[in-house]
């Protein structure tokens, strides 16, 4: 696979803007614009709701964790039993937004996008690791970093919930498990704090991405510059498959979200 040289990357003005295709048309730019006056729909209501609920729960979890874990904060707040209770319930509720979100088709579609790595995602990752650079030209609806972050979130929520339950109900498990669970919960919490801080940092640097999660819509120029392959991911299967040995999966003709 050839990765694009930086000087060949799409730049604003150098290529034509992102425009969504009305259902059934194959020409990308044909008469699409009038349908989307406020930019492009990136997330459905269910998705923005799920993200917001998860963010709030995560915030409560992190704040209570800090109070329980850092003595100066604990001294300031006191009320340890209340803080423990809030931490336990907000923690065990963390998987709920995603579980409820599964009822939404748009959520399931995006979940699949997040879970799968395409060739350009590996290229994105290589660029990020080797050249310490985020390469928007190699991003579909989600870039590889976002995909990894989503998977990490799913993983840490499950591990933290599991180890948290072991500590919550200490009589159900042997002591060895409990010290092990405390070990995993404590150290993973530090890693989660660092990674979530990174997530918030990237969000803080990109108001349009935040707007996408707040309103569900993003400007076209943003989609074109940050996620130029978004459209091509949604394009019907090409006539000439890239890998002839592979069978064409059903549902190749995908509709716009």
């Amino acid at each position, binding site marked *: 696979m050839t990765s694009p040289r930086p000087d060949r990357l799409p730049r604003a003005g150098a290529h034509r803007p992102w425009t969504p295709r009305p259902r059934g048309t194959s020409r990308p730019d044909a008469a699409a614009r009038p349908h989307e006056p406020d930019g492009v729909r990136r997330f459905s209501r269910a998705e923005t709701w799920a993200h917001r609920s998860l963010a709030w729960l995560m915030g409560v979890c992190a704040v209570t964790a800090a109070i329980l874990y850092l003595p100066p904060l604990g001294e300031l707040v006191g009320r340890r039993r209340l803080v423990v209770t809030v931490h336990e319930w907000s923690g065990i509720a963390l998987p709920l937004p995603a579980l409820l979100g599964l009822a939404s088709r748009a959520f399931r579609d995006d979940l699949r996008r997040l879970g799968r790595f395409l060739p350009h*995602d590996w290229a994105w990752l290589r660029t990020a690791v080797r050249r310490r650079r985020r390469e928007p030209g190699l991003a579909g609806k989600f870039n590889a970093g976002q995909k990894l972050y989503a998977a990490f979130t799913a993983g840490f929520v499950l591990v933290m919930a599991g180890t948290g339950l072991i500590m919550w109900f200490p009589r159900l498990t042997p002591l060895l498990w409990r010290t092990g669970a405390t070990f995993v919960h404590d150290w993973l919490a530090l890693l989660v704090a660092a990674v979530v801080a990174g997530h918030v940092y990237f969000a803080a640097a990109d108001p349009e991405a935040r707007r996408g999660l707040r309103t569900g819509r993003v400007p076209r120029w943003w989609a074109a510059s940050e996620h130029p*392959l978004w459209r091509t991911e949604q394009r019907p299967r090409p006539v000439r498959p890239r890998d002839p040995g592979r069978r064409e999966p059903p549902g190749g003709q995908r509709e716009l979200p």
Partner: protein
Amino acid sequence: MENDTAPGPADGGAPVPYGPRREADDGVPQDTGEPDDRDGTPVGRRLVLGMLGLGAAGVAVGGALQDRIDSVLARVSAKDPVGVTGLLPGGGGFRFYSVSNSVPHRSETDYRLTVGGLVDRPARYRLSDLRALPQTRLVRDVQCVTGWRVPNTAFSGVRLSTLLDAAGVRRPGSAVHFTCFDGVYTESLTLEQARRPDMLVALTMDDRPVTAAHGGPVRLYAAPMYFYKSAKWLSGITVTEQVRPGYWEHYGYDVDGWVGRSNGRHDQPTS
């Protein structure tokens, strides 16, 4: 940013130069051939399953691992001037636990310790009264029921038995209930436990007056028991007929909180 300007209008049907495999200037219109995203590698699933596996492995070996880390951290934190290691799990030292709303403060002037209940001679002690009584100093490990342990911590103060003898326990008194001036916390011991020589009404910790955050000016120090038994901000000692479970004991902690022999834990005894 180079993308701040809105893009120009569409200009017809020329091929659009998106796509990683397309060379923009090679003159040959190529199909970008983006596969459907179902074809991609299921990296997300693998990462989640991998984390679950690591988490389970961590639960299995974590206890032993944390012991190693504790001993390393103890050595490092001895030479750590900024105290960063104190922020790491098992980084050592006391953790502040309080169930009340804020750290309560009492001083020389307004602190009183009352001894009452089933006794012949109820009493009220000022700090100076307590200091005037025979002092006992103990250096033991402090073990918290949540797992942390602080080695070799010195406490000194008046033996609980001294105060009980001075008050004269009446029958049928067989237990001692402790109340605290935070207004919330309570603790209890049997009379037999309370008369042990390693049960103190502590005035100093590490040879300095007990600070307010650590439960000063006066806290209980129940050396052989988990540290939740050592009530902070002690203000009342009441001899009762039966053991009244304390604050945490209403939430499932053992009333007889011997280190290593209660709460399902097997820590090294502290006394």
